[in-house]
């Protein structure tokens, strides 16, 4: 069977997109209405983590550098929101832009020295950040601000407003808010990677020297991308305070950083929608492994958290061998057997005005795309 070819931004493509988003919205509403509270809490967690993974995706997938410290930005955003909400009586939503701004500035300052140089220096600096963050959040001098080693409780207490038609529980409402915020941030990100900025980053990732010669300033674009990525992670941390009313030092630690990377790899590096899949996977994995503990003598009793970590680790390695593109890459691969989306080529402006340029046929498009979709 020949796959159907659909040009991007054509009416047919719009129908696909709108249908996709509509299914997503209905799914979110059904989950918020029908699922038990503990599952809604997990889903809220996944919604916040998906934004953090998306942030990581922007830097890994679109600039080819790896950050091992997005947990630190995540934790930093959580603390920013906590301080504003608890100590300054800010409303929850108002803290998000501030968390994003602070996280972005921090990311910019750290990215600046590391991204000037090619290689693994960003990984190094961010690794240090992730290891340092919990110890910074714990120090006594900042205990008034951060609550010290025990963390800081954040009672957001945002209840469902009376005008909202769907009767949902408190957890259901929290999930709806976080899902809506995540949806907005995903929409912005997917537009950004198709913009001038996104194209500049992809060109740098694929051929830095070539891109530089074409007038793309590497350090500037990469640092900018890293700052936005850090802003996303920071905002994700602030978002989570709605569902989990405490921020603790270890939230920002290295283990969360690797979990975020696991989610990214599972979902698919460089694929925006993969971040959602990855977040769902890392939230549900510990739930799955919890019941496996009794079959494995090494991980019996109260070692199920360790089993989850071992599973994350083994999955990370296995993915690199089995499916390096991630789950969404596989989904796209299957989809491309049935329908393919191809970019709309710019109108050909012929230098030779006498020659009539006919519309580009689907077959030509497929050829120029090399069959990839």
């Amino acid at each position, binding site marked *: 069977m020949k796959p159907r070819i659909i040009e991007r931004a054509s009416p047919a493509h719009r129908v696909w997109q709108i249908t996709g988003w509509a299914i997503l919205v209905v799914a979110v509403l059904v989950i918020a209405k029908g699922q038990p509270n503990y599952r809604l809490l997990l889903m809220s967690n996944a919604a916040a983590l998906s934004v953090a993974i998306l942030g990581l995706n922007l830097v890994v997938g679109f600039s080819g550098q*790896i950050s091992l410290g997005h947990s630190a930005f995540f934790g930093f955003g959580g603390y920013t929101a906590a301080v504003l909400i608890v100590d300054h009586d800010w409303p929850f939503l108002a803290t998000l832009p501030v968390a994003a701004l602070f996280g972005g500035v921090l990311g910019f300052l750290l990215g600046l020295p590391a991204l000037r140089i090619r290689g*693994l220096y960003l990984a*190094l*600096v961010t690794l240090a950040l992730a290891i*340092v963050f919990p110890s910074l959040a714990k120090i*006594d001098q900042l205990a008034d601000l951060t609550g010290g080693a025990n963390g800081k409780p954040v009672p957001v207490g945002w209840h469902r407003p009376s005008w909202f038609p769907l009767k949902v529980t408190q957890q259901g409402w929290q999930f709806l808010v976080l899902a809506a915020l995540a949806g907005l941030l995903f929409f912005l990100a997917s537009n950004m990677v198709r913009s001038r900025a996104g194209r500049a980053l992809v060109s740098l990732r694929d051929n830095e*020297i070539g891109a530089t010669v074409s007038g793309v300033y590497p350090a500037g674009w990469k640092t900018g991308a890293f700052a936005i990525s850090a802003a996303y992670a920071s905002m994700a941390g602030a978002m989570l305070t709605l569902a989990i009313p405490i921020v603790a030092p270890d939230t920002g630690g290295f283990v969360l950083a690797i979990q975020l990377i696991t989610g990214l790899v599972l979902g698919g590096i460089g694929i925006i929608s993969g971040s959602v899949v990855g977040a769902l996977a890392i939230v549900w994995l510990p739930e799955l492994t919890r019941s496996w503990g009794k079959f494995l003598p090494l991980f019996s009793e109260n070692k199920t958290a360790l089993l989850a*970590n*071992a599973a994350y680790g083994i999955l990370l390695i296995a993915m690199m*061998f089995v499916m390096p593109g991630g789950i969404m890459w596989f989904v796209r691969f299957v989809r491309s057997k049935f329908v393919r989306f191809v970019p709309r080529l710019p109108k050909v402006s012929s230098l030779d005005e006498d020659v009539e340029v006919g519309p580009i046929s689907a077959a030509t498009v497929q050829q120029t795309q090399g069959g990839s979709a």
Partner: protein
Amino acid sequence: MLLAASVIAKVPGIDSGFFRLAFFLKLVSNGLVNGAVYALMALTVVIIYRTTSHLNFAQGEMATFGAFIVFALAIQQGIPYVFAIIIAMVISMVAGAGFERFLVRPVEKRSALGVVIVTLGLFLTLNAFTAAIWGTESVDVLKPFPGGLGDKFTFMDGPPQFFVTYKAVGIWITLAVLVIALWWLLQHTKLGLAYRAVASNRESSLAVGIPVGRMLMLGWAISAGIGTLAAVLISEQSNNLDFNLMGVVLLYGFAAAALGGFDSIVGAVVGGMIVGLVEALVPQLFTFIGSELSLAMALAIIVIVLLVRPQGIFGTKRIERV
């Protein structure tokens, strides 16, 4: 770091005790002991980086696992430390070579990012398995050197006394012996020549018939062996042995390697010593920094090196060919 906790700073600014010679010397010797262990970790980083340009983020967890093998052999089975450490190092070396051959190399062809991800996966897996096998609590400390109260050389009678424990001397001698052995291996054997050839140019080495793959495995093996030794020493030095033993130490090792230069063995040793000294002296010089923030200094060292001299003190500058 240990001493810093015991010295309570009363006034902000410079600690007055800093200027007493015996106290100062004590700080320096403490810094150099920690520095020696950081130097060992930096060596493990450098040995792998020179041939492959990869950073092994699982280095610390591999070393911790090795230290627990020593624990199982020496403390649980009662085998003498020397043999226990040698057996654990051999096991680590085999495992290190195996990781390179079966986990890293297949992925390496595809992307450098893949290698980072595989080593992170290894980090999580080894960390979880160490904790699952030996528990999350601290177990008996490894004590390969005599560590009693009287086991020290006293240089200046007190108070404050200046002495160097046998343990500290043992750690320095271990580092010295190891560096000399490594130097001899790399500079005076055919094997070392082949390793250096691969480090300098992989393609050309392949062309003249050097078994490049085996050299990469050799690098990982040596690195894993040294890592295990470093973990044993850090357990003795920090009076601790738990599944998170190396999490922080590896960061100091990376800072030391960045400072010395990622491709320089001399740099690793010098970098380790400097990082150890900075960690011991700076919190005393500026008491507001406090010992909790000594970790943040590792971050600061990395950032300053990147800003001032990205290739490190002894490293060679990378030249990109267009």
